[in-house]
């Protein structure tokens, strides 16, 4: 397909929302490499001070307006403006980002304060989502960040989080050293597999919620 960049441009424009690269490749019958090549061309077209920008995150592509022109956009179109997150929301979002999937109790242990309201607000803003339940007493909900979180913080993936590798190491060192109070807790069962980073460990334990 020699006009693939034009096709992608039209698709991303109409979709508004993010579209998966894999899905586009499959449905258009082209390779992922071809798509990425076409995206390269689009990145040139929409580079610099362009009013439209291409975002790439979590294997998806999406058009957005250039933040530089927000004042003029707001004058003409009067869109609903997002507000910056409060300190507490940002704190909880950071904990979830680096330690996902994580339960409310685990978040509260780190912060030392009740975080129910903050979690609810983050859920309402679609910055976090429920991804399952932890296989421990009470089967608490597990939270993880969303694509919207990545977009808001200009990350293409979770590995793009500030100081990702160092932080993952630090988190491991800071993990509680006392034996789990609940012998049936999952943490114990997976602690042998050292190489799996904490934030991925949970994945095996997630009972997916549709």
């Amino acid at each position, binding site marked *: 397909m020699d006009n693939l960049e034009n096709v992608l441009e039209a698709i991303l424009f109409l979709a508004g*929302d993010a579209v998966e690269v894999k899905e586009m490749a499959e449905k258009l019958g082209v390779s992922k490499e071809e798509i990425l090549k076409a995206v390269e061309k689009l990145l040139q077209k929409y580079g610099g001070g362009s009013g439209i920008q291409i975002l790439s995150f979590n294997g998806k592509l999406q058009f957005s*307006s250039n933040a530089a022109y927000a004042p003029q956009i707001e004058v003409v179109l009067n869109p609903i403006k*997002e507000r910056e997150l409060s300190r507490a929301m940002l704190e909880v979002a*950071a904990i979830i980002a680096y330690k996902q999937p994580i339960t409310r109790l685990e978040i509260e242990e*780190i912060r030392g304060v009740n975080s129910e309201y903050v979690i609810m607000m983050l859920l309402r803003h679609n910055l976090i989502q429920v991804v399952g339940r932890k296989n421990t007493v009470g089967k608490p909900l597990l939270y993880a960040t969303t694509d919207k979180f990545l977009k808001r913080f200009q990350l293409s993936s979770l590995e793009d*989080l500030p100081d990702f590798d160092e932080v993952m190491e630090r*988190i491991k060192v800071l993990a509680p050293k006392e034996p789990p109070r609940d012998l049936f807790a999952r943490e114990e069962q997976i602690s042998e597999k050292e190489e799996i980073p904490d934030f991925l460990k949970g994945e095996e334990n997630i009972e997916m919620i549709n």
Partner: protein
Amino acid sequence: MEKAALGKNYRVHLSSFEGPLDLLLYLIKEAKIDIKDIFVSEVTKQYLKYMEDIGDLDMEKASEFLEIAATLLEIKSNSLLPKLEEIFPEQEDPAQKMIRQLEEYKLFKELSEKLRELETVDRYYRVADDSAFAPKVVLKDMRLDDLLDAFSRLLVKVERKKRDMEEPREIYKDPFTVDEKIEFIRSSLAERRTMSFFEFFDENATKDELIATFQALLELIKEQFLTVCQKAIFGDIILTIREGSAIG
């Protein structure tokens, strides 16, 4: 300057801290010490001093602050006692635990500040076009046999009707009951999923039969067995079986 003028008694208001750990980190920073030196410093004392304002907080926040205060006091008193042989050596020392907790919380506080710098609230996204994501309905494979079958059945139906018209009709007591009609509509819709309202009203039907049919339809709508859709006033009314309705 103003801060200096207030002297030693100056205190940041308790309610401006996210929680007890936030206050401790602030005091550690003010004291210019490492987190690990917290228990050989004045920080515990300063923390307890802050508890004088605890009445300004609501119950829940207050209890969070007081819980940490209790822990700090416990650690302090333990350090005054002669060290006992540890019965549970695997149990984390409360002081160590507190230090670890503070370090972890500090890490995430710093990370959230870094995230703040990345946060953008000035980008806007397009609303999807109406045409996008609407499912495209395609017809499944068609078999000539089905076409022939439908046509043949139709011819038989037409033929029967014709015969009925020719034969002298006897007027007899109306045999139609609502239950029978419900059964008939149920089985027809179970087979065809969607039918026209008028298909159920034969033009040769007696008034009583029409009423029975209509009552049956009302009953089925009430039971949520089917949905009714009319696109235009006086237009055809489309009856559709609800997905998942019990067929029987």
